């Protein structure tokens, strides 16, 4: 009696197994992408009407999808029937839904369908627990908007505005002459400008000036190009300068030492000079005293006497 599967059966079984594994992996990938595995919190919102919301309509915060409408139903428990909307919001955004958050149905301008917009709550308010009620704001209808627009207060404001407009129009009429003369003056100015009169006219209209400015700019361009070339040439020189400076610095070191020695020596120089001057002065005083002695004075040869110079005019022919 033969036991186990034949080779063909083994091949068919293996193929099926691979197919099943592939299907499962694909399903898992799709589920992950669809967010089927994401945990979601459920919240309830009550509106006076459904505003064309559907099951699966988007729930947004900051214009970003955070969940979907799960269920719509009409409740009759209160005096006035209400539409109860159950939404599912991704759990990661649950911390943004707080007591001061407000849900509102938003209609797109032209394309798309209605969705629920929830305003983010501030950190000071407690979070709304799952299955809790999110406060809602009713969307105003066109008639309500019109009624608001056509309120007595607004009509009064429009009336005042029209009155002001009428007054302004009257004032404008009075200032028309002044405006006309001003316009005339402006016309004249523009005429002068177009004829190239005056400094501004010359600046604007004279082609020669424009050409010269153009030439100057061209020359400036050339100069800049040359300057660029020069800078490139200067670079190696600057590098050489660096080497040169370095060698100078090296040479300066012994010089510094010499200067320091001289400085140290020079500190003693004033004392030395003072002593020498003092000695010379006392020697001179002694000599003067000896010279002043009558006996010496009589015998010593008469010295030169200081006198006013007479510039004798020995003029040459």
């Amino acid at each position: 009696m033969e036991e186990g599967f034949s080779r063909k059966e083994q091949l068919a079984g293996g193929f099926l197994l691979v197919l099943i594994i592939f299907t499962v992996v694909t399903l898992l990938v799709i589920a992950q992408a669809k967010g089927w595995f994401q945990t979601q919190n459920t919240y309830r919102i009550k509106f006076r009407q459904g505003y064309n919301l559907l099951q699966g309509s988007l729930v947004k915060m900051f214009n970003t999808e955070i969940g979907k409408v799960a269920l719509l139903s009409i409740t009759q428990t209160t005096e006035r029937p209400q539409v109860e909307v159950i939404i599912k919001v991704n759990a990661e955004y649950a911390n943004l839904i707080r007591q001061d958050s407000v849900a509102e149905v938003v209609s797109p301008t032209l394309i798309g369908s209605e969705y629920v917009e929830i305003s983010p709550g501030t950190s000071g308010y407690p979070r709304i627990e799952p299955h809790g009620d999110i406060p809602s704001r009713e969307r105003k209808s066109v008639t309500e908007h019109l009624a608001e627009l056509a309120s007595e207060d607004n009509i009064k404001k429009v009336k005042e505005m029209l009155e002001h407009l009428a007054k302004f129009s009257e004032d404008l009429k009075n200032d028309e002459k002044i405006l006309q003369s001003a316009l005339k003056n402006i016309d004249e100015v523009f005429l002068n400008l177009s004829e190239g009169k005056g400094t501004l006219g010359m600046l604007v209209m004279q082609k020669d000036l424009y050409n010269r400015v153009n030439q100057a700019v061209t020359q400036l361009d050339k100069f800049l190009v040359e300057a660029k070339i020069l800078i490139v040439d200067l670079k190696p020189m600057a590098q050489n300068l660096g080497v040169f400076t370095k060698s100078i610095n090296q040479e300066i070191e012994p010089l510094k030492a010499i200067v320091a020695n001289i400085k140290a020596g020079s500190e003693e120089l004033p004392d030395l000079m003072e002593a020498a001057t003092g000695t010379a002065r006392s020697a001179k005083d002694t000599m003067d005293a000896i010279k002043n002695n009558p006996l010496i004075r009589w015998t010593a040869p008469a010295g030169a006497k200081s006198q006013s110079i007479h510039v004798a005019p020995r003029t040459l022919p």
Partner: protein
Amino acid sequence: MWRRAPFLSRWARLGLALLLVGGCAAKADPFGQQVKRIDEISIAGEELFSRGELKRASRNFSRALTMSRSVDYIPGAAQQLNNLGAVALEEGDYPKARDYFTQAYDLNQERQQFAAASINQANLATVAVKQGESAAASQHLAAAEDAAWQSRSQPAMARVYLQWASFYLDQNDPASAQNFLTRAQPLCTTPELKGTLSHNQGRLALARGDSGQALEMFSRALTIDRSVLDRAAMAGDLFYLGQVYQTRGDLSQAWDNYVRAFDVYAGMGRKAQLAKCLQRLQEVNRQGRMGHSLERFEKLANPGPAPKPS
């Protein structure tokens, strides 16, 4: 027998005693000492001036002036102002020279230092002569004569008379020059004045065409001026000696004397006089066909580019 040792000993002791007494008699005189220092600086300045080192001389005179003013030594201040004027005159800055001489004259006149005031006026006359203002020069000389007369100083009078004589010789008026030289002669007692007298007598003789007399007078003046080492006067004497020899046709002697005059002026750095000497050397060289090289003289006279030989 004459005993030498006790004799010498006695005289030595007597000499020492006299020195001691003389030393004790000397009094401390700080002002006198300061004046002496000022005089020393001024004398050094005068020496530099006579050597033609005008910048250094000016420095000495300025220092002496500051020192004189700082101790209220007015005669010293007046003297230094005069000397600074002399430096300015040699440098050719005539307005500055006139200003200094006038300041010096005012100080001397205030303090009735007439001899010094006479020198100031004589110097002002020299400034006027250099500027070609003969009338102003004669006015200053008249003022100098007045001051010299008031000073009753013979050398002061002689100095003014000699300058009058020189002035008239410049004006080609030998008679007036002769008159002043005659008046000056008995008053010239110092070597400086005797040298100037002989020099002017030589010029007078030259003006009268008496080259023999002129030669004698200039030679005498040169001897006297050399004895007192008055370089400017010596150079003047040598130049005129050269001129006398040139007039007499002795061009070789003329060349020698002009060269000597040139060298003395070169030592003093007198550019204007060097140019005149060079001109005479060129003349003599050409007249005598001597063929001497003038390169050395031209280099010294014109430190810039050498002039082309004419």
